[in-house]
């Protein structure tokens, strides 16, 4: 097990800055040719709303509505978006806390969406979850040893007599003192509790971890500790991460690939470069411009933000056409009539916008009109031949529509 990780945490053991730097990681790199471990296609989750008296279904919350993506083996995909965008529900569907309304989730040759709870049980070893709140996700009446050891016992991973040794080993991996296995969660700080949660998730040597806001409840200095620990673990054990967070900066560091969600749909997905330096969706652009930036202090000027007006509409009754149009600074008629398809516009870059373009360079005419067989305002165009196979595929195709050249790009 790694000795490096332990040093970062234990008090009084830092000797020099160089040593400290040696224990940290630069931003995670993309492994472009990695095999997918999880392929999600057209995933949907509608929660029924029932009337209070007769329990009739009177509506649906469309929490996740047709989401497709790929998590590569040993890689990480970041899922970002604001509260209510469906990113946490997506994570909960993958860990099968809910059975999805539709779509598929291919994991190691099996479709998680189709499995019964019973069939799902052996797979739960391979897919683990790290939760946001280190205070409520650990049972206060159980010792750390029993919290981390329970999954080992339930799944019969190691002989009973070896459980303790394995627990201590795991505690060491996550940078906790292995002698503290008989302490209770309340004896640990927030950051240490999050480490306990990670040790528990790691106990079964999962292939995929769903981390739902794993650092947002922690102090700033502790966040960096936990992110570095997760990077250690990823390198050491080749675990893939679906990393769900609202903090774009943390995702930038941890995830070479990012999907941006809005109101149950992916509006833009791509590698780090495409999303952070070359965003084409107005929502992604607004989101990025809203992140407070320390560099402003360097330049001394205040950056102009794209101000989003209004509020996120209700997922019970989402807007017609493009769901972002009610708050979009560049929305036109077509946006209310047609939902923009998630078009591939780069080698690893897809965007769902009729007017996709760099900030300030959005086209005047909808790019998608011809594909949809309509005119610029979205009315049916009798002369056009709509493309019929606009189904969203997870992953990326070898060819795409290059917006700069107005031609088909090729890998």
């Amino acid at each position: 097990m790694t000795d490096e990780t332990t040093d970062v945490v234990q008090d009084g053991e830092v000797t020099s800055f160089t040593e400290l730097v040696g224990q940290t990681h630069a931003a995670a790199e993309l492994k472009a040719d990695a095999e997918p471990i999880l392929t999600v296609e057209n995933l949907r989750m509608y929660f029924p709303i029932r009337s209070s008296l007769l329990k009739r279904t009177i509506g649906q919350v469309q929490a996740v509505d047709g989401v497709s993506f790929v998590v590569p083996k040993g890689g990480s995909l970041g899922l970002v978006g604001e509260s209510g965008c469906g990113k946490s529900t997506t994570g909960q569907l993958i860990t099968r806390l809910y059975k999805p309304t539709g779509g598929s989730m291919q994991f190691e040759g099996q479709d998680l969406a189709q499995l019964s709870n019973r069939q799902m049980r052996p797979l739960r070893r391979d897919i683990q979850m790290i939760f946001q709140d280190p205070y409520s996700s650990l049972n206060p009446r159980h010792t750390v040893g029993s919290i981390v050891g329970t999954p080992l016992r339930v799944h019969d991973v190691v002989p009973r007599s070896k459980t303790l040794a394995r627990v201590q080993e795991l505690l060491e991996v996550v940078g906790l003192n292995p002698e503290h296995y008989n302490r209770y969660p309340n004896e640990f700080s927030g950051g240490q509790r999050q480490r306990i949660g990670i040790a528990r998730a790691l106990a079964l040597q999962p292939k995929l971890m769903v981390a739902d806001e794993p650092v947002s409840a922690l102090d700033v200095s502790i966040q960096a500790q936990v992110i570095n620990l997760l990077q250690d673990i990823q390198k050491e054990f080749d675990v893939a991460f679906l990393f769900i967070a609202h903090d774009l900066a943390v995702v930038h560091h941890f995830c070479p690939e990012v999907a941006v969600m809005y109101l149950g749909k992916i509006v833009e997905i791509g590698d780090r470069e495409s999303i952070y330096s070359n965003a084409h969706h107005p929502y992604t652009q607004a989101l990025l411009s809203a992140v407070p930036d320390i560099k402003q202090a360097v330049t001394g000027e205040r950056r102009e933000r794209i101000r989003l007006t209004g509020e996120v509409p209700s997922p019970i009754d989402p807007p017609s056409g493009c769901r972002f149009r009610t708050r979009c600074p560049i929305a036109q008629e077509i946006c209310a009539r047609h939902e923009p398809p998630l078009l591939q516009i780069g080698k690893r870059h897809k965007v769902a916008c009729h007017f996709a373009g760099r900030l300030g360079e959005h086209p005047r005419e909808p790019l998608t009109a011809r594909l949809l067989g309509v005119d610029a305002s979205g009315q049916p165009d009798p002369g056009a031949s709509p493309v019929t196979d606009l189904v969203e595929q997870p992953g990326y195709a070898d060819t795409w529509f290059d917006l700069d050249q107005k031609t088909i790009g090729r890998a």
Partner: protein
Amino acid sequence: MSGAARPVEGEPYLAVEDLTVRFPTADGLVQAVTDLSYSVELGKTLGIVGESGSGKSVSSMAVLGLHDRRSAQITGSIKVAGTEVVGLSESKLRDLRGNAVAMIFQDALAALHPFYKIGKQLVEAYLVHHPQATKREARARAVEMLDRVGIPQPDRRVDQYPHQFSGGMRQRAMIAMGLINDPSLLIADEPTTALDVTVQAQILDLLQDLQREFNSAVVLITHDLGVVAEVADDVLVMYGGRAVEYGTCKQVLTRPEMPYTWGLLSSVPDIGADTGARMIPIPGNPPSLLAPPTGCAFHPRCAHKDKVPGDLCSTTLPELLPGSEGERHVKRCHLADPDAIFAAEVLPEIAPDLVEEPR
């Protein structure tokens, strides 16, 4: 402006000097804030940065005299427009609270009473400092304030309960309530922490607009250096109940001189950063306020103490002294030449793209 406190020409509106706040508990004396001094002028914003337990909230609550007299020992001086707040009678403090000095809190859902309509809570805040006003006037004022903070249909929303508002709207309502009596000093305790980034941006913009309009002094408490960079004129970094670095926003964020500030900067990745940038954590955990470390409170977690001769860091508390950039920028650290270390060691790791840039 109403209320007892009136601004004095040329003086800072809020002047805190040698503030110490202690809480005797069964486990011992909690030294929440020790020897803290700062000041804020009208029209200016001070950002107080620190992690949980750094004393940033405790010190600000002392400005309003919100600590229980029986459980808190407060010494030092807090002057609001020349009026000493420490030791002020409860009734005089009440005149100040919500009137000349207002406070808005993190998590508006918890900070607004769940059982009362938004309007009623605003009206209550107005009437307590305008006893001569009628209910109708107070309600009109509440609607006006909700409108001013950008709540749509304020005349309808005024009759709704907090849980019927979205997170951003609740925080706006909280701000409306804080500003209803035109305070000269606004203390905002993590006002955007629980909010989404786009909503946070809206709230920060709103706070800045309102500050310009009312020319008030603002103390913004946050853990987020990015937020500070957006809105603050001055920055005070707190650690273990003490100020460890204090200067203008530009000085502290571009030429920080204290390893804790470096640690905060290196813990937060930048969204525009080079992919070679590292996220360098501060090792260990925040100190106990019951038994703070000897010497410099930060020394057990400091990665640069090897550059200070002997065991100075663990034995002697460094004074808050000016560094290389003049009187206005002070730091509490034994390092002889922090600027050089920051430029040569820290910056290349956390922002490799900034190193070549001439400053």
